[in-house]
């Protein structure tokens, strides 16, 4: 796989440096370059800290700013950050109200954030919200639940707005956990991913194949199928999402179509149009929408659909002003 890079070793670091340079009004390096932080912290506000492996850009750094994250810790490609990064972020952005860690549900991410939280427990009030929105896998008897995928930005936006208005740690935790059962995503890949410096693709798809239920690490998904029409693809990923959501009057649907990095805008908007039509035919009328490339798996071709059914309060928080490199309204 060809990439614009100098080496696989330096890809993440050089990309972060470029990102900070491009958004120096909002974002800065913290902790000697170990994490990204909001340039201007708001004293007395709970520090919202997230992070995860590299290769998912613009997640999480793109969501740092007013009304969203205070810090983002990035690991190597598809590798969660280490506890020292997370510790440094807590030390630098906790202005007294404690830290809320927003973690995507992968064993590696959860363990690293937990270790950091244990180490920092003597000097910070800390709580954690684990994002698990992937509709491809239900929590089985012994597994640790659904993966966290593109729905992460919904959690970060809503908690970010709540933190900005002054919610305390406990309220944020309650808000985040309340949202979880009303947030689902599902993805499809048309072309797999090669981790830089690896000789082989993590998964390779034939020229007429697609992989349904993929995550965001180029890992294999639920099932491999013959490439279908966009209508059929949209049906295959929207139906399971709807099945798992408590559709009801009074909830405000938010629809996100997210590109995985190698999918052009023309296809994302097409997918959005079809997803919206599918949902509306099922009686679900999106109140707000977002189409773009937000949570990637390097340059994987494909996309995911996220549907959130928001309460009145959550919806207001979603609509609240935000000023970050990626979301701004």
């Amino acid at each position, binding site marked *: 796989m060809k990439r614009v890079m100098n080496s696989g070793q330096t890809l993440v670091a050089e990309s972060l440096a470029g990102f900070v340079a491009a958004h120096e009004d909002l974002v800065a390096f913290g902790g000697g370059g170990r994490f990204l932080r909001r340039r201007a912290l708001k004293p007395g506000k709970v520090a919202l800290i997230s992070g995860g492996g590299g290769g998912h850009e613009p997640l999480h750094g793109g969501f740092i700013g007013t009304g969203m994250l205070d810090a983002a810790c990035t*690991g190597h490609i*598809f590798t969660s950050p*280490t506890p020292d990064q997370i510790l440094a972020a807590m030390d630098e952005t906790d202005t007294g109200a404690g830290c809320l860690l927003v973690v995507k549900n*992968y*064993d*590696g991410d959860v363990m690293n954030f937990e270790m950091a939280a244990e180490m920092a427990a003597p000097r910070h009030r800390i709580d954690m919200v684990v994002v698990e929105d992937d509709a491809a896998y239900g929590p089985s008897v*012994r597994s640790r639940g659904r993966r966290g995928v593109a729905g992460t930005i919904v959690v970060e936006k809503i908690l970010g707005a709540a933190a900005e208005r002054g919610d305390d740690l406990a309220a944020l935790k309650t808000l985040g956990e309340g949202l979880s059962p009303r947030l689902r995503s599902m993805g499809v890949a048309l072309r797999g991913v090669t*981790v830089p*410096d690896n000789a082989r693709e993590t998964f390779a798809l034939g020229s007429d194949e697609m992989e349904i239920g993929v995550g965001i690490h180029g*890992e294999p998904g639920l099932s491999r199928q013959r490439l279908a029409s966009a209508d059929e693809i949209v049906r295959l990923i929207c139906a399971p999402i709807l099945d798992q959501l408590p559709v009801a009057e009074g909830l405000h649907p938010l629809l996100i179509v997210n590109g995985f990095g190698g999918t052009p805008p023309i296809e994302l908007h097409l997918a959005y149009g079809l997803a919206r039509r599918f949902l509306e035919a099922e009686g679900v009328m999106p109140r707000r929408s977002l189409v773009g490339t937000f949570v990637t798996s390097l340059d994987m071709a494909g996309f995911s659909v996220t549907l959130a059914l928001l309460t009145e309060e959550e919806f207001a928080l979603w609509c609240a002003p935000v000023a970050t490199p990626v979301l701004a309204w």
Partner: protein
Amino acid sequence: MQLDAADLTALIALCRAEIDLHCEHLSVLDSAIGDGDHGANMRRGLEAVYAEREAIAALPLPAALEKIGLVLVMSIGGAAGPLYGTLLMELGRGLPDAPDAAAFAATLGRAVEAVARRGRSGPGDKTLLDVLYPVQAEVAGRAAPARIAECAQSAARATEMMLARRGRASYLGERSVGHEDPGASSCALLTTTICLYLKEHAAP
């Protein structure tokens, strides 16, 4: 367990070389049922330990092990970092300065339990614990190093037929069967490297 600074330095160098040699293989295993980075992760960790080998080797054994664990945690990331880190840190914290075989086996047992708690996992989940448990049992039974190494290797191979219930592979369900677990594989490689060294160099 009498390991002096020279032994520790040598062991660090050997483990680093072994991981480097099998880096691509570990990533290929991880590509099949995970995200393809286990080789790179382990290499990064061992390189970090290697870079600090002199400072580490200068410490008493328990402190040295704890330090190795900390370096692994702070350099690997992913699932492997906290797991290997916890193992070494707990081992270091639990060992007396000059442990006898019984003390070592007991501490290893507690360290393996700490790893299981960290991963919220147990036997048969198709993880590195499926190597650690049998290795600990052999150590407790005072098996010879060569025997322990053999046990580690066959335990790693045995993960092939397991259905993953932890880590990324767990999302594959039935499709995880038929592939050796990368963490189990790296664990067997490291165990073997250490055991073979002990067989050659350490007092029986």
